[in-house]
């Protein structure tokens, strides 16, 4: 058959953001990727920052005092949020991707209740824990002058 060219109609990264009305899991997928990239960036910086200790106590302490500014502390809080979300959503993904939390094949009878419903309680519990920990971290940030 002749291959049709012209408009490929692939919606690309637009799909991640607002192409279509995602289900909740669809948004978690996007957040998991964004938080993952953020954490990788942080990890790379972290390695070099902590490496500064090789240059001696003075350099180390100068750098550490730099990280106590409000902007830095806020960025750190964002990293914390990304980590908490990535960790708890990750627990769900591990269970799902090993075929544990998706349930056994079922008869497709309308209204369909598939794997999304099977993993949903787990998702809700984990997201509540995530929310609580993120809030606690926020309080901690406000309470202690770093």
């Amino acid at each position, binding site marked *: 058959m002749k291959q049709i060219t012209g408009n490929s109609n692939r919606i690309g990264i637009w799909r991640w953001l607002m192409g279509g009305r995602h289900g909740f899991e669809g948004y978690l997928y996007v957040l998991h*990727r964004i938080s*993952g*990239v953020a*954490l*990788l960036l942080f*990890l*790379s910086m972290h*390695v*070099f920052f*902590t*490496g500064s*200790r*090789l240059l*001696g*106590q003075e350099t*180390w*302490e100068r750098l*550490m005092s730099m990280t106590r500014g409000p902007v830095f502390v806020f960025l750190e809080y964002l990293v*914390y949020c990304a*980590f908490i979300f990535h*960790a708890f959503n*990750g*627990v769900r993904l*591990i269970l799902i*991707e*090993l075929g544990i939390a998706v349930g056994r094949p079922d008869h497709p009878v309308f209204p369909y209740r598939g794997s999304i419903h099977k993993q949903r309680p787990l998702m809700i519990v984990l997201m509540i824990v995530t929310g609580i920990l993120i809030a606690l971290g926020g309080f*901690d940030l406000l309470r*202690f002058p770093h």
Partner: protein
Amino acid sequence: MRETIYWLLNIVCAVVILVLLGLHMGIMHLDGVLAALLNTSGHPLAWENMLERAGSGFFKSTYVLLLATALFHGFYGLRTMLLEYWSSPRAEHIVTVMCWAAGLTLFFTGAYVTISFGPGAV
């Protein structure tokens, strides 16, 4: 079975990170709680406390393990995403090599810092 092995390693790394980073976060950032519980003193980022940790073989080895697993997990994820954008066989090769190179560079930098730093080193 290369992709399956990469993917499975990625999951194993995730579990290791979950445990070790939980510890790491606890020690470094929940210092208020820990201080109350264990009666330790001082900020974990203070020079002396850092020296103390750096002298311990336990901290050294867990840090190196954490570094390795976190980097593998991170760069595997990055590679997965990049390969969705550049999906030609050539791009596959280039992206894979670049991810390994960046990951190994960071690993050796971090491992060198962790291992060579200690009470007698500076």
